């Protein structure tokens, strides 16, 4: 059965929130029989990450953390993968990065270095959250409007869909949430999500072999 490696840094509000929601997708992976390895908190560092990839050769790498055009970070934003340095660590994997901008350069460079596919965002991933749910981000329905579509990408891959289909499925869930905001009675906070749901949907990209599966 396939192996999944996830990075789950939790050093600030954004990483706490995305990591808490990513765990829901990891639960789904376990249900589907995946062997799941989590690099949480301080373990989300380059040394551990490279060591785990080399040892377990995960088919699916799920990166959660801050990033930029050329790199994705882990704990305390220290670089895990960087174009021009160690992008070949993603060789033979399908990677989904819930991270800012990494589909701009790192995605393409990792594919050139042998990654099968790389799904990520070309610009910053922007989301709203409920200040009252700061300590319980997994219960934050406002953040969920953004992070459920993100999870759908991982869940689609886990269910055997191709990289291309999984990224389209993510876009579909962003669009579904926008449709909900437009067609049902929603709170003011929910309605103001439209602009950022559209932003994330528009910037979601897939590089490499669209037919790749995990």
């Amino acid at each position: 059965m396939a192996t999944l490696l996830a990075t789950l840094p939790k050093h600030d509000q954004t990483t706490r929130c995305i990591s808490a929601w990513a765990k829901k997708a990891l639960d789904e992976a376990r249900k589907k029989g995946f062997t799941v390895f989590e690099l949480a908190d301080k373990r989300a560092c380059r040394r551990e990450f490279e060591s785990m990839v080399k040892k377990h050769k995960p088919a699916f790498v799920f990166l959660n953390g801050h990033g930029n055009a050329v790199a994705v970070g882990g704990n305390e934003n220290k670089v895990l993968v960087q174009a021009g340095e160690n992008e070949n660590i993603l060789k033979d994997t399908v990677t989904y990065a819930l991270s800012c901008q990494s589909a701009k350069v790192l995605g393409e460079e990792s594919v050139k270095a042998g990654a099968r596919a790389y799904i990520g965002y070309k610009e910053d991933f922007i989301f709203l959250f409920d200040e009252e749910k700061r300590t319980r981000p997994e219960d934050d329905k406002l953040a969920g409007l953004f992070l459920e579509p993100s999870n759908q990408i991982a869940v689609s891959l886990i269910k055997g869909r191709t990289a291309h289909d999984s990224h389209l499925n993510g876009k579909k869930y962003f669009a579904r949430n926008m449709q909900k905001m437009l067609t049902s009675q929603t709170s003011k906070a929910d309605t103001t999500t439209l602009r950022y749901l559209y932003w994330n949907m528009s910037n979601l990209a897939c590089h490499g072999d669209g037919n790749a599966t995990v």
Partner: protein
Amino acid sequence: MKKFWKNFLNFKLSDFMEEYNKEIIDLVVARLQTLPEGVGVSIGSEGDYSKQELISHVEHRDAVGKKIIDAEMGFLRALKEGNFYGDLIGNLA
């Protein structure tokens, strides 16, 4: 050579107009005012911000402010040009 300078001048003017047009800043600030209180906005590695903090960044036209301007204006342009509903329906299909 004339063409080069014309292009250069046009680029700089459009850049300037786009980034510092007061009408755009006012429009983005007005849109941000619609965000409810008690909601934080996470903008990647830049951090997370309250409504008032975001407005301040936009008014100061700094890196965070420019990102928010891009997102807000991208959305409004998509509405104006009809791409929003096309993208919405296209991705729902």
